[in-house]
């Protein structure tokens, strides 16, 4: 995993540096053209300060923190995430609280996916080819086909109109910058309803379909028929063995689920103005604020990798047959 993260960081750095120039050289060009020579000196100084005048591989190593920069070793590994030129603040300050909120939003989405997909998938399989099955797959297809961001807007509008759900943001404005309290948590939860729903629907739909297919495979096996013939009650017949067998792929799938959820959360955050790292990423990418953009991308990738690892661990707990260590000879 560490190796993967390393490769990912290199890839991200490369992508960030694809557009010609950087934030400061753009600024210098702008200052020159408007004749503000005083600002140029400052920007040139900053360029030196953040090693933007060096070669790309060197910049990368300095950013990671395995090469001495102008101030010795000071990079991601040392906990120095760099400077955001646009906000004129250290990156860690810009994204500090947003990082936590991103995790909260994504956790909520994952929970939502499971809470929705598990009962619906089982129900759709048990009552296959009835209206429950058709209804759940209809909702699933709609979730799959609607662009996330528009679903978000429409749900926000109707949620506010009919259920008096709050619009925009992740908490009521008066709670911002406040310490944690019961009231604040309540406000955050209330604000989370629509985003979670929007981010999770597509994932839940895919999950549900897969669980349904797996369950159907299991339910057609002879042991289920035997059980039914012997008079095992239907609920027990469903949960005792078929569900346990069908559950494995369900958990293993979280590795595929998390990248798409995070993608969705970035988009939805931009549209709904949630204070997660989504909007920060968008503005950083647009203005070539490279340290900020690089860090956000790296954080998102790390979050995905950690999520995948957790799913692997869960899978090992759930099914003792699965081991990931090397095969012994």
């Amino acid at each position, binding site marked *: 995993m560490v190796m993967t993260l390393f490769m990912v960081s290199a890839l991200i750095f490369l992508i960030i540096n694809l557009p010609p120039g950087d934030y400061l050289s753009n600024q210098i060009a702008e200052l020159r053209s408007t004749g503000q020579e005083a600002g140029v000196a400052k920007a040139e100084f900053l360029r030196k300060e953040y090693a933007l005048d060096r070669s790309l591989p060197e910049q990368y190593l300095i950013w990671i923190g395995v090469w001495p920069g102008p101030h010795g070793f000071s990079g991601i590994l040392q906990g120095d995430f760099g400077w955001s030129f646009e906000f004129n603040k250290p990156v860690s300050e810009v994204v500090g609280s947003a990082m936590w909120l991103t995790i909260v939003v994504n956790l909520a989405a994952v929970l939502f996916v499971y809470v929705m997909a598990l009962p619906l998938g089982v129900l759709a399989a048990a009552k296959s080819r009835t209206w429950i099955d058709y209804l759940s797959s209809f909702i699933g297809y709609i979730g799959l086909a609607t662009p996330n*961001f528009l679903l978000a807007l429409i749900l*926000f509008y109707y949620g506010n109109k009919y259920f008096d759900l709050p619009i925009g943001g992740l908490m009521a404005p008066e709670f911002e910058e406040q310490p944690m309290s019961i009231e604040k948590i309540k406000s955050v939860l209330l604000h989370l309803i629509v985003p979670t729903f929007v981010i999770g629907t597509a994932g839940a739909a895919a999950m549900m379909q897969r669980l349904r297919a797996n369950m159907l495979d299991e339910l057609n096996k002879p042991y289920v028929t035997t059980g039914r013939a012997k008079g095992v009650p239907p609920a027990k017949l469903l949960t005792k063995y078929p569900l346990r067998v069908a559950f494995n792929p369900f958990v293993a799938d979280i590795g595929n689920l998390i990248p798409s959820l995070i993608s969705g959360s970035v988009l939805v955050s931009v549209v709904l103005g949630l204070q997660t790292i989504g909007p920060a990423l968008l503005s950083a*990418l*647009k203005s070539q604020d490279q340290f900020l953009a690089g860090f956000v991308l790296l954080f998102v990738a790390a979050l995905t990798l950690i999520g995948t690892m957790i799913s692997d661990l869960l899978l090992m707990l759930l099914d003792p047959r699965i081991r990931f260590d090397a095969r012994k000879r």
Partner: protein
Amino acid sequence: MSRLPDGRYVDDAPYHADHEASQIDNPDMDAPTRVLVWRRFKKHKLGLISGIFLLLSYLLLPFVGFIAPYTAKERDAEHLYAPPQFVSFMYEGEYIGPHVYKTTATADLENFRWTYLEDKTQPVKLEFFCHASEYRLFGLIKSTRHLFCAPDGATLFLFGSDRLGRDVFSRILYGAQLSLTVGLIGICVSFFLGIGFGSLAGYFGGRTDWTIQRLIEILRSLPELPLWLALSAAVPSHWGPVAVFFIISIILGLLDWPGLARAVRAKFLSLREESYVRAAEMMGAKPSRIIGRHMLPNFSSHLIASAMLSIPAMILGETALSFLGLGLRAPAVSWGVMLNDAQNLASIEIYPWTAIPMIAIILVVLAFNFLGDGLRDSLDPYQK
């Protein structure tokens, strides 16, 4: 049917010893593969309907200029944000043919918006095969003939008009040209890379396989959208719409191939051991020939089905990127660019028709999904 004394039933028909031998194993397997595929596909009603719908949509793309009553950039400054007009056939209980009513705009100075009033007393008939603004058929031939257009002095905004007074219906048709082809180009890129890398990894194995496997793992573990964003932010802003369109579709394809490559690799690993591959190797065929002639055709059906299932992701991707302002940009017309207008709550509430392109997107994405499902089930007719 006769009943034996002990209560059992026995068929009266005489028993032929070789009756079973003369019957084919699978009576429905008596035709060439493509007939079998078609037979199976026909049973998948949803897939069939979706297929026809998509075929029609793609066939109509070169003719949108003829079908649309307006062109994509034509502005009607008198009718900003005009609501959708309905075409009716009956006027005061009598059939007079398709007609609309003239609308007049009045400024609502309290809410600062335009309100439109229909003049119900004067129906004006639609014109067919009439002359209106100029467009280029197939992008080449200049023409002014439209299938139908607004009658003199009246407007024909079937789905309303947008912020600049452009017809939403016509723009959806023009937008389809870009939005529907973005997926096709993307899938070509993704196929090229996916099949290339997948077959290399599966055929040669060893170190090549290891390297490609790691690459796939890394790309699959990354969330797509932030990467799309980062890549399209790198597209220079001074490029023309056509260049941006191509680069965006290539970007969409660039991140889609790992899933395909994995499937190809797994299939190749098992196919490599088949005796016909051995035979070809013995006869001195080059790897490129073995891969291209003997192995790939073996699972082209799987490839086609998976292509159908990845196109919608690309269409949605283009929409999302354009919506965020990092994809196609304003002079270009695509569904994502159009939805950019519906970006805020105010427009959803006051001008809900600006979000109509969403319906087009949903239809196309659903159709691709159903078609993909249908093809996946039917392309391998020998499987039970």
